[in-house]
């Protein structure tokens, strides 16, 4: 049984279909990269996978007893307000809420996990600072730590490296790879960094308002769509 299965799914905003023909499945331990140009429907699909949006047609099924409390998520644009008074630590530990559930306060373990994830992304010294006073890249790292805190089985990341400097980007990729290898956590990442995608991912899903390619990374680099996209071409679908 696959962790997530997408069958003929299509998504629409107010009746306008933006992405369609989605047929793929994600197995436990996969590292899936979703690629495609701006506006191709990647974020929309991710919202669908998270249950924040219902498909207009088709189905998204979860298997292996996957619960939403086991999912970590990094949004492309946080829905939180810019001037919200919250410290870095408060934001990061809120990622533990799903697994803590109804029990009051956070446990010692929750606090320890939050500190470890801040350490991993090098933001431990910032933990008492106000989130709104950080730089864009620092904020991105805080939200990544929060996502890591929430992750038990699946981690969904929407353009995680945007705004990160090259050193932190490299560290981030190796953190994610280690997470995927050592803990068997499933990674679903949207990325415009196609070279990193083919280097790290086990599977690629290429969108262009419809599904152009889904399969293993080896097959993708051989495929027409992959060859074209890797060369830096953009409008694959419209050129053909």
């Amino acid at each position, binding site marked *: 049984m696959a962790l997530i299965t997408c069958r003929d799914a299509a998504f629409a905003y107010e009746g306008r279909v933006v992405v369609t023909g989605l047929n793929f499945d994600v197995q436990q331990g996969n590292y899936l990269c979703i690629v495609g140009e701006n506006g191709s429907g990647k974020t929309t699909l991710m919202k669908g996978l998270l249950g924040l949006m219902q498909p207009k047609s088709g189905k998204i099924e979860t298997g292996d007893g996957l619960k939403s409390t086991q*999912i970590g998520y990094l949004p492309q644009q946080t*829905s939180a307000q810019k001037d919200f*008074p*919250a410290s870095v630590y408060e934001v990061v530990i809120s*990622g533990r*809420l799903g697994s803590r559930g109804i029990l009051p*306060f956070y446990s010692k373990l929750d606090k320890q996990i939050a500190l470890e994830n801040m350490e991993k992304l090098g933001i431990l010294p910032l933990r008492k600072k*106000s989130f709104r006073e950080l730089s864009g890249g620092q904020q991105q790292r805080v939200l990544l730590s929060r996502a890591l805190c929430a992750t038990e089985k699946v981690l969904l990341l929407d353009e995680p490296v945007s705004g990160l400097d090259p050193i932190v980007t490299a560290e981030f990729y190796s953190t994610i790879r280690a997470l995927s290898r050592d803990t068997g956590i499933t990674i679903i990442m949207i990325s415009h960094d196609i070279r990193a995608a083919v280097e790290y991912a086990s599977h690629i899903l290429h969108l262009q308002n419809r599904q152009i390619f889904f399969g293993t990374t080896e097959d993708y680099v051989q495929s027409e769509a992959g060859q074209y996209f890797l060369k830096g071409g953009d409008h694959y679908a419209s050129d053909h």
Partner: protein
Amino acid sequence: MPLIIEMFSFSFLVRAIVVGLLVSLCAALLGVNLVLKRYAMIGTGLSHVGFAAMVIAGVIDFAPVPFSLPVVVAAAFLLLRMNESSKIKGDSAVALVSTSSMAIGVIVMGMTTGITLHICNVMFGSIFAMTQSDMYISVALSVVVICLFVLFYKQLFAVTYDESFAKATGTKVEIYKSLLAILTAVTVVLGMRMMGALLIASLTIFPALSAMRLCKRFLSVVITSAVISVVCFFVGMVLSFGLDLPPGACIVGVNLIVFTVFSGIAFVRKKGIA
């Protein structure tokens, strides 16, 4: 000082102070979430619904708190739904509910004679309003509100800070939004007797806004807001007693002063202390 001692010699005043302190605390705690979640209008809307409910309770001669409570809680659910349904229409919907309930209250008031004093109390608050049994209900309910707030503090934070993240990672956000609305409804009903329908909403907004001028962390905003609210309530009560003015207005006045001072400090800080 002798003024304060004198205040505590009146049992009705002691009752008013005990309940008022607890309600101020509830309002300040919830207020932080209401303001940050852009739900401040719900507090105002509910106080107007509460006004109508109190007037009707007075006319049919029914105990005001038990009568208003279910009405205002139901209105809280309604306002929450309206607020969700669409962003722009949401706050006009709240205004619609507020003004309609105000109208119903005034019409009911106009159809009956001889209760003008009662209406004045409902609008502007009265410290004589609190009976012994009112006090027991109010104390019990405010303690429940405070306990629920503390128990679900982290959920309320998560839902207020980033609702879609909370939802995506498995938190039942609808439940906690409803909880926030219900707790607000209870606080509004309890506070209305003393603060008056016109002023109770400010009790949820002012302390939170003042605290946000200076604090940068959520927990410190919550604590500062609670302290401001309790202190302002007490100072306002003393002024009200000393100057023989309506308590609600005095308390809001003190809150306004605190807000102005805090804003001033924030402004000076921003300019880099020259």
